[in-house]
């Protein structure tokens, strides 16, 4: 039914039947071409062209206000939901423009984790993870339970919550809540996972857990992470892009960017002279 290569993806996942993105393969590559974004009359992003390879972690770094959050929010079409926001340029997911797709479908394939963990407070842990699945039509209770468990395992949270799935999500610590949000996102089987400063609100131990998780997740998904913590980028990312004032100044493999930056501004930021 679907032409797909079988690398890295659990074919026996209960949600396999649920995937019908026939033209997309697993862990897709993203590409942006000359993406500019404006908010009312103010230009936030200028002509950003970046290739985000599949099954790798790409980090976006830069000082506050450089447009990195805006950039990542364009990738799942969240930017346009703000009143007064416009954008131009092309964004391709697996070679297909995301503007040709229904926004809700884009967001199903391109998941996002936010800076402040935002599980649905009126729902239990299980309901949170199942929320996305239910939204997209999965009703069968047994499958929901299975998928939820899978997602929680993938998010390295299962062992901590397996006995208390029916507690409210607010009963968890902040780090656990963030992993719950990750589980919720993973449950609907995205191909790209966007993370907007996922650990900046968390304590160092939770940060470590998240970073290990990222290392694990990239085998199955493409990860884009925005971070203001330069060391974090150095730790987790395969590729890093440096943004400043709405422009992408430089990009490259993390090692290259950090050890031999081409642009002086990159060097200054990376070594901590500003930002």
């Amino acid at each position: 039914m679907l032409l797909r290569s079988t690398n890295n993806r659990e074919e026996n996942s209960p949600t396999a039947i649920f995937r019908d993105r026939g033209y997309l393969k697993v862990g897709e590559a993203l590409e942006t071409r000359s993406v500019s974004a404006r908010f009312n009359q103010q230009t936030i992003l200028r002509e950003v062209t970046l290739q985000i390879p599949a099954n790798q972690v790409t980090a976006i770094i830069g000082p506050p206000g450089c447009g990195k959050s805006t950039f990542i929010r364009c990738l799942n079409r969240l930017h346009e939901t703000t009143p007064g926001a416009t954008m131009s340029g092309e964004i391709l997911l697996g070679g297909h423009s995301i503007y040709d797709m229904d926004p809700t479908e884009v967001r199903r394939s391109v998941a996002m984790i936010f800076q402040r963990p935002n599980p649905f407070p009126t729902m239990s842990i299980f309901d949170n993870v199942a929320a996305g699945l239910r939204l997209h039509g999965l009703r069968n209770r047994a499958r929901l339970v299975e998928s939820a468990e899978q997602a929680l395992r993938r998010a390295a949270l299962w062992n901590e919550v397996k006995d208390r799935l029916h507690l409210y999500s607010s009963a968890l610590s902040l780090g656990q809540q963030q992993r719950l949000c990750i589980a919720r996102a993973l449950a609907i089987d995205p191909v790209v996972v966007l993370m907007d400063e996922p650990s900046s609100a968390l304590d160092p131990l939770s940060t470590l857990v998240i970073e290990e998780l990222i290392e694990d997740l990239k085998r199955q998904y493409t990860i884009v992470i925005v971070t203001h913590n330069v060391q974090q980028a150095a730790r987790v990312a395969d590729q890093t892009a440096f943004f400043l004032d709405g422009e992408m100044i430089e990009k490259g493999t993390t090692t290259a960017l950090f050890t031999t930056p081409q642009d002086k501004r990159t060097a200054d930021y990376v070594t901590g002279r500003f930002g």
Partner: protein
Amino acid sequence: MKRVSTQGWNGIFASVLAVCVLVVIGAGILDAATLIIAAAPSIREFGVSFLWISAWNPIHHLYGALPFLYGSLLTVSIALLLAGVIGVTTAVALTQINVQWLRSVVSLLLEILAVIPSVIYGIWALLVVAPVLVRLSGRAGAVPGEFAASGFGVLTAGVVLGVMVMPTVVALTREAIASAPKDIAEAAIALGATRQETVALAVMPFARKGILGSLYLGLARAFGEAVAVSLVIGNQPQIGGSLFARADSLASMLAHALTGVGSPLQTAAVYEIGLLLFLITSVFYGLGRAYIARDAISPRLQPW
């Protein structure tokens, strides 16, 4: 010394203010006390049965609140149904509209709706609502001839009341929705929810309390409305069958009842109705405030 005199002034000032507070609160107590004292003869005469005596008969010195309770309950129910459904959905619409000018225009119109006095609502009711309802109902089926002639009745009064209460419901529901945390809504959108799903999943659960409060406050307002209702309800204290029948409500009867001529018992009975109205309004108002924080009701949008 200068410091002492400033302190002195300070103290005097504070005392003056405190007196003002006492005056304000005292006025309210005076209100309630006057009602109780004026109603005393009637309370003594009829006791609790006042609530279910269904006659208002000066000739036989028999007074009861039931017909008016009936009228009030019916009109208020219709009003709240209208105001609730239309008001809440409009509020949701306003929060979802991204077009700034449209939102401002609709908000402006609703604010003006809230400032218009009841008399003018009454005129509009006579001028527009009654004839329209007569025409609509005539087309729908058989209606009592009395209604077809005048357009007065419970239904008309209920509709007008609904229009009057609606701005309150809209304003308060908007506040309730605005106070819902935005990052939860973003989480829903990021999961791929449609607008309708986002509202249902991430907005309404937080707005529920505020919406309930707004309905209670609307109830309080609706019970207390006298002028507009008295113009179209038909002013006949009867417990009729259909919505097209004439009736009378607690507040609207008060508008006509104190003519200065009439036995002391009658006057006392009228005040007892007033007392009843005071109690009902206070209860619902209190309930509404229990659900809605004080600051949520912006000073600009005081509905009454």
